[in-house]
């Protein structure tokens, strides 16, 4: 390995370590909150058609659970990533999706109004085969206007460091 690439590896290690240390101090902090948003039939129909899954839903009055995870992304701003929950870890480079977990407490029906809150829940360093990886987990919790919990989505992002593509 050349000296330059060794320096590069060390720079990435510093970037990951410093970025995760900064985030560790913010565990539990609210990153974003939004709502109430009404889940209308048109939004659900478009989402269902866009999925292109064979057949029709068994219950057309229930919102597909994965649509929940997309609610914070609206409205669309073409060619810009406007996802508010991803602004907290800009110092870490080269993100890849580390997995998504949905936990469902109850069904969400069309016409309901939903509120959401995203919080930073985990930030730590894991040694990968080619160097340190920054692991960041954010949880978005959803609840109805009546205060009942609908569910939560945990998103894990793995940062490899370096310059963003």
């Amino acid at each position: 390995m050349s000296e330059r690439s060794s320096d590069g590896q060390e720079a990435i290690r510093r970037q990951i370590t410093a970025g995760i240390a900064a985030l560790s101090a913010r565990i539990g902090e609210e990153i974003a909150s939004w709502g109430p948003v009404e889940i209308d039939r048109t939004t659900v129909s478009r989402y269902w058609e866009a999925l292109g899954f064979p057949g029709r839903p068994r219950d057309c009055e229930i919102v597909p659970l994965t649509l929940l995870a997309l609610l914070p992304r609206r409205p669309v701003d073409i060619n810009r990533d406007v996802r508010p929950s991803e602004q907290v870890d800009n110092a870490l480079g080269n993100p890849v999706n580390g997995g998504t977990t949905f936990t469902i407490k109850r069904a969400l029906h069309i016409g309901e109004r939903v509120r959401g809150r995203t919080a930073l829940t985990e930030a730590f360093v894991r040694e990968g085969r080619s160097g340190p990886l920054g692991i960041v987990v954010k949880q978005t919790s959803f609840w109805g206007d009546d205060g009942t919990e609908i569910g939560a989505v945990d998103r894990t992002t793995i940062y490899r460091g370096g310059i963003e593509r």
Partner: protein
Amino acid sequence: MIATIDWVRAQALPDGAVLLDLALPPVTMTQLAFYCGAAGVTDPIHYDRDLAKRMGFKDAVVNGSLRVGWMAEAVTSLVAPPSSVRELKCNHVRAMHVEDTPAITVTLKGRERPTVLGGELVLICTIEMRVGDTITDRGEARLGIAATGAA
């Protein structure tokens, strides 16, 4: 029509049983563009083939959230009501591109016994999505099957 799993069927299913084996249609650019609009996804690697290739991808990239959506629909189609899906975990293993033809298999891994008489039986299922012989996504779901047939 995919047969739903009720209490009686849930009791009889052996671990390792394939609950669903479904081939999806090939992914098209129209679908990706439509999905990005419907879902509020803004990253152009999903709808600009030239840009995706310039960034080192084989072609336009199928959204991770779209793949999660297929996995969710796959397990949701197995239960009634759809809210019987208690938990869904998804991990992406490989990239998927436009014109790929994905297939999904859902297999019974095991079950959690009801903790109270007449309670809910929870099936634990593994989900595997693949393109050809290559696994692109793995997941696990917990499906609640009510003793009365209603969750």
